[in-house]
């Protein structure tokens, strides 16, 4: 099984190496004639106002937390789907209980207004 993954690993290593080498090369041998326009965050784009390290709203955290919870739910669904022929009806019922418990969390969050953005 490892042998089937080795090409993937080497592709990742190669991709990282190429990106890193190009960054270093452009830093070393690239011409550096900077103008005030060039050094802005987005050249020819929006004029940045304020720092990027601002304090974020806590609503982002709630969205990220919900994302992780349902991410894990989907990860659990994957082995269930692959082994569906073996587990059959019992597996389906087990999965439905699992989803219903998490659905209670989602309903609670919606009722609480956690997904409203104002």
């Amino acid at each position, binding site marked *: 099984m490892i042998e089937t993954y080795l090409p993937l690993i080497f592709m990742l290593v190669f991709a990282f190496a190429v990106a890193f080498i190009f960054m270093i090369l452009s830093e070393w041998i690239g011409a550096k004639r900077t103008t005030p326009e060039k050094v802005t965050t987005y050249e020819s784009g929006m004029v940045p106002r304020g720092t990027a390290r601002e304090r974020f709203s806590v609503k982002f955290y709630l969205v990220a937390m919900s994302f992780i919870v349902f991410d894990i739910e989907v990860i659990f669904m994957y082995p269930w789907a692959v082994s569906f022929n073996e*587990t059959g009806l019992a597996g389906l019922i087990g999965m439905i209980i699992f989803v219903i418990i998490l659905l209670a969390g989602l309903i609670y969050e919606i009722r609480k207004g956690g997904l409203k953005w104002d």
Partner: protein
Amino acid sequence: MSLIDIAFYFFAILIIASAYIVVTSKNIMYSAFALLFTFFGVAGIYVLLNADFLAITQIVIYIGGILVLIIFGVMLTNRITGVDIKTGTMSKFQIWMTAILCVIAAIGLILIFTQTNWNTALSPTKASTIEDIGTLLLTDYLIGFEIASVLLLIAIIGAALIARRKTN
């Protein structure tokens, strides 16, 4: 040295180096980003251990989820730029306690490493472990599987409560 050895040492060095940056970096954002490479290296080690499902879970949940949550956590804090996370501000007592605990942990790990009867048989030539994991999760370990959903339910309710405390 086979290709697998090379891959193992590559991931081992990646994990140790990036974990060192996580601990020693003065900038907490750099720590968070170095943690990405630690998680990625652990995923690589899982692949080398034939644990393909664990590797995918590591990438999807830890890199895709937990790390985003950590970075959000950093961004939510009040003072990000001015935070001075010096590692050298411990008292003598704390340093000694840390040293003793580290030595105990190291001895324990070395004992485990030398005492365990490592299974060196050839790895089974199974294409994938996912089907077995799914079958076991929904038969033998069904209780643990459902308890995991309760744990996730607690997490989402807790997050909703904390995030909505001020308005409601």
